[in-house]
């Protein structure tokens, strides 16, 4: 396979472009930082030269300067009009003056909004959801990290329960159904009642759902490690009793949300709720279609597998997160969404095109050719909702770009949106017949699923959690730790995906050339090592995130003496109450 012919393929060109987009943005960020450092350095040089010059000033020159100084320093006494009485700020207009400039090692970002008045039982529920999600993130990615190591050290253990084939679905399912799903539902318990301007229908049902979801992931993981699974369809490895438990939980929450929306005090249903409720409904449909046995014999299983795999991603994770994005992004930027209509267009286009593309995982296989073609056409159609969504979010940023630099949450939003654009369109490019030929069955798929499930979904969820939790608990994480989390995760993801995509392309070309299979394994070894290194950075960032979560929930255990007038009065009141 010639490099020249490779570069004449539109699918390849699109992919290269899409990989370059985040790289260029990262490079720009680095250049801006570097520019500041260089400018500072030049100023210091100029200062040194200046210092040398003023050492040799003559007395006459000094006199002249002194005189000019006196002239410039002349000022009014400021009491010429107002007299000499002390001024008082009777309306409390000036507040929060910081008179002690801290050490500016890193830039201080804007603080989170003050704590909201929320029913404490709902706050507790949401905190439980997010806590469980964080646990599954750490658990699932620890397993993933171990799997990544196994590519470089296949004999690291010989324990049946830890063998590669059994652990791989433990990793994927734990981060899907444990981390992402639980976090999304937990966040929705805040968003849905909030935009309906009413209380949640039933808090208790929320706990039932949480219990069901957790039980499903625990049972499912144990079964998988014990060698009990559903027959090998990817992401469909949990057996049906486990998925019945999971689905039952989802059904309860769906009912809960619809009841809440039914008694909303706003007239319109804000578009977030369209996405969230639809995602819950569709997940139940998808799970039913995937687990009901009537149409699963022979190739039926494969057609359903393609449908399931992709709808799970697009109609559950993506749809749900987009819904949350339509709420949290305008909130955090403090301005309305750019176009409500574009959000509605994206909603219907997502349902229409995404549903069609499932079988693009089985191009050139024995499933009907027309179905493969429909999948390819649908993949191209995905351009509409993706561009509509990306445009909408980026245009909402317009005029507020300066906020990105002063916020520790907005970078998460921005990366999530960029990967939403590049990751989704990369999926489209992969579905073309030639690129599929080159990349299918290689590690490119693994890189793509991490660009999307991690780059889009996980980054968005982090953005939402960092936005919401301080508002619920009143505790903020250390800005330095959030920064460490962000950069470790982003750099780790790039280290993870770019070597895998490069190696996979070379691997595909090797296969097309008819080289012996084992040569492609040898070829991949250095790329797999890079993947393990990137994976380690990502994993490390999750530990930092778990720590930040703990801080946001428990608060930093510092004893604070009340300073503001309100706090002092409150403290006094408390004291009086206690003495009574």
């Amino acid at each position, binding site marked *: 396979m010639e490099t020249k012919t490779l570069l004449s393929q539109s699918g390849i060109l699109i992919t290269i472009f899409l990989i370059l987009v985040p790289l260029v943005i990262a490079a720009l960020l680095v250049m801006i930082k570097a520019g500041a450092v260089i400018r500072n350095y030049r100023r210091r040089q100029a200062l040194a030269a200046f210092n040398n010059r003023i050492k040799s000033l003559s007395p006459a020159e000094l006199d002249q300067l002194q005189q000019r100084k006196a002239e410039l320093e002349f000022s009014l006494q400021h009491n010429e009009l107002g007299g000499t009485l002390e001024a008082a700020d009777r309306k409390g207009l000036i507040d929060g003056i910081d008179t002690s400039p801290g050490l500016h090692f890193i830039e201080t970002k804007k603080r989170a909004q003050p704590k909201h008045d929320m029913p404490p039982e709902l706050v507790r529920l949401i905190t439980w959801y997010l806590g469980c999600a964080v646990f599954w993130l750490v658990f699932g990615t620890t397993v993933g990290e171990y799997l990544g190591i196994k590519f470089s050290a296949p004999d690291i253990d010989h324990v049946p329960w830890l063998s590669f084939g059994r652990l791989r679905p433990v990793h994927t399912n734990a981060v899907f159904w444990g981390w992402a799903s639980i976090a999304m539902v937990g966040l929705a318990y805040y968003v849905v009642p909030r935009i309906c301007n009413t209380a949640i229908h039933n808090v208790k049902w929320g706990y039932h759902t949480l219990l069901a979801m957790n039980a499903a992931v625990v049972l499912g993981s144990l079964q998988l490690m014990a060698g009990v699974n559903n027959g090998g369809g990817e992401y469909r490895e949990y057996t049906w009793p486990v998925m019945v438990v999971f689905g039952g939980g989802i059904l309860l929450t769906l009912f809960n949300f619809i009841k809440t929306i039914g008694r909303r005090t706003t007239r319109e249903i804000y578009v977030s709720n*369209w996405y969230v409720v639809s995602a819950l409904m569709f997940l139940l449909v998808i799970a039913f279609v995937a687990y009901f046995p009537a149409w*699963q014999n022979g190739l039926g299983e494969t057609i359903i597998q393609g*449908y399931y795999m992709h709808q799970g991603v697009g109609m559950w994770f993506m749809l749900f997160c987009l819904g949350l994005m339509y709420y949290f992004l305008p909130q955090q930027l403090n301005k309305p969404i750019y176009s409500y209509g574009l959000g509605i267009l994206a909603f219907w286009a997502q349902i229409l095109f995404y549903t069609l593309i499932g079988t693009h995982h089985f191009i050139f296989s024995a499933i009907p050719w027309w179905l493969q073609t429909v999948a390819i056409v649908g993949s191209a159609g995905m351009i509409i909702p993706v561009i509509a969504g990306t445009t909408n979010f980026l245009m909402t940023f317009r005029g507020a770009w300066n906020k990105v630099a002063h916020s520790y949450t907005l970078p998460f939003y921005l990366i999530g949106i960029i990967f939403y654009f590049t990751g989704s369109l990369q999926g489209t490019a992969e579905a073309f017949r030639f690129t599929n030929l080159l990349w299918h069955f*290689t590690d490119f798929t693994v890189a793509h699923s991490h660009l999307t499930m991690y780059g889009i979904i996980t980054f968005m969820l982090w953005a939402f959690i960092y936005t919401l939790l301080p508002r619920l608990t009143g505790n903020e994480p250390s800005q330095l730790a959030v920064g460490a989390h962000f950069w470790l995760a982003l750099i780790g993801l790039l280290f993870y995906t770019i070597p895998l995509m490069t190696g996979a392309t070379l691997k595909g070309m090797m296969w097309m050339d008819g080289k012996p299979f*084992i040569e492609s394994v040898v070829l991949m070894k250095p790329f797999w090592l890079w993947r393990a290194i990137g994976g380690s950075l990502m994993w490390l960032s999750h530990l930092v995130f778990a720590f930040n979560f703990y801080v946001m929930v428990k608060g930093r255990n510092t004893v604070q003496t009340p300073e503001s007038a309100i706090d002092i009065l409150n403290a006094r009141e408390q004291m009086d109450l206690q003495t009574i």
Partner: protein
Amino acid sequence: MEFFNQHTKLFGVALSLFLFLTLIVAILPAWNNQQSNKPLPGAHILTADEMEGKKIYIANGCVACHSQQVRNVDMDKVFGDRPSIAADYAGIGRPDLWSNTATLMGTERTGPDLINIGRRQPSMAWHLLHLYQPRAVVEQSIMPAYPWLFEVREKTGPDDVEVAVPEKYRSGITGKIVATKAALQLVAYLQSLKQQALPDGSRPAEFLYKKEKTISADNNGNPALPDGAQLYTQNCQSCHQANGEGLPGAFPPLKGSPVVNGDDVELFVNIIMRGYDPRPEYASMPAIGSINGLTPEEVAAIINHERSSWGNQAGPVSPDEVKKIMDFILLTEKSN
């Protein structure tokens, strides 16, 4: 629009649209495929042991790295004789109440495709050793080892199948390493994976995206032979090893072998094309040349590679000579 403000209608419409599309692109095609395809005549039905082996294959998640499908593209030709068709999977149903139909088509090839592995690598001895420790047969392999499918015994009984594990991979085990029933069942399943020939008269689909064949010539103007070393890696190396020394107790060495270095080209070609099993101390050799559809040029290239590597110094054979012998083999096989 008022419609957007009525939640029951809005969600009802969204759900209906999704259900309608689901019906069209998933449920109906799936159901149609299930109803309208039947297994090919003479298709192999898994025996009880093979079925148990398949369950072990499923339980250990082998599908994570091994696909079971030949796509209708040229690059997949190494894994099977013809593209897979719906009928190949038509006989597969649910193995039990708890798990779904397992066509095991797969989406990832970290390891090679296995749809035709029973034909490409029929040797039980090879599979058992490979399962016990993949790196004992394929040095660069990253496949997990499955030692828990084997037992260590002091003495072997008459029905026990012992695995000849090289010293390097025994990790201090002095007893005899014997395959458990599960290992034998798994191998039985792998051996059963063979592409079923199409009924007489029907032609398989074409392989698409054919590689352009470039024919180069050597100094004398004769067409040059294909790359023998590469063909050796593809067809012979997993047993006879890269250093040509084979594995003691399992696969004989080619280095210094009287057959490889001898003058009896007919015997050599016959072994490659029809298999060989005269020596009880070694596993039997499959008819690898016929199974993989090697051409006379490719067989000649492999022979010449083997005759000139690892210190072997026998002279080359010509493709014409090989072709004559292969034609004769074909003739005798037909007349049988």
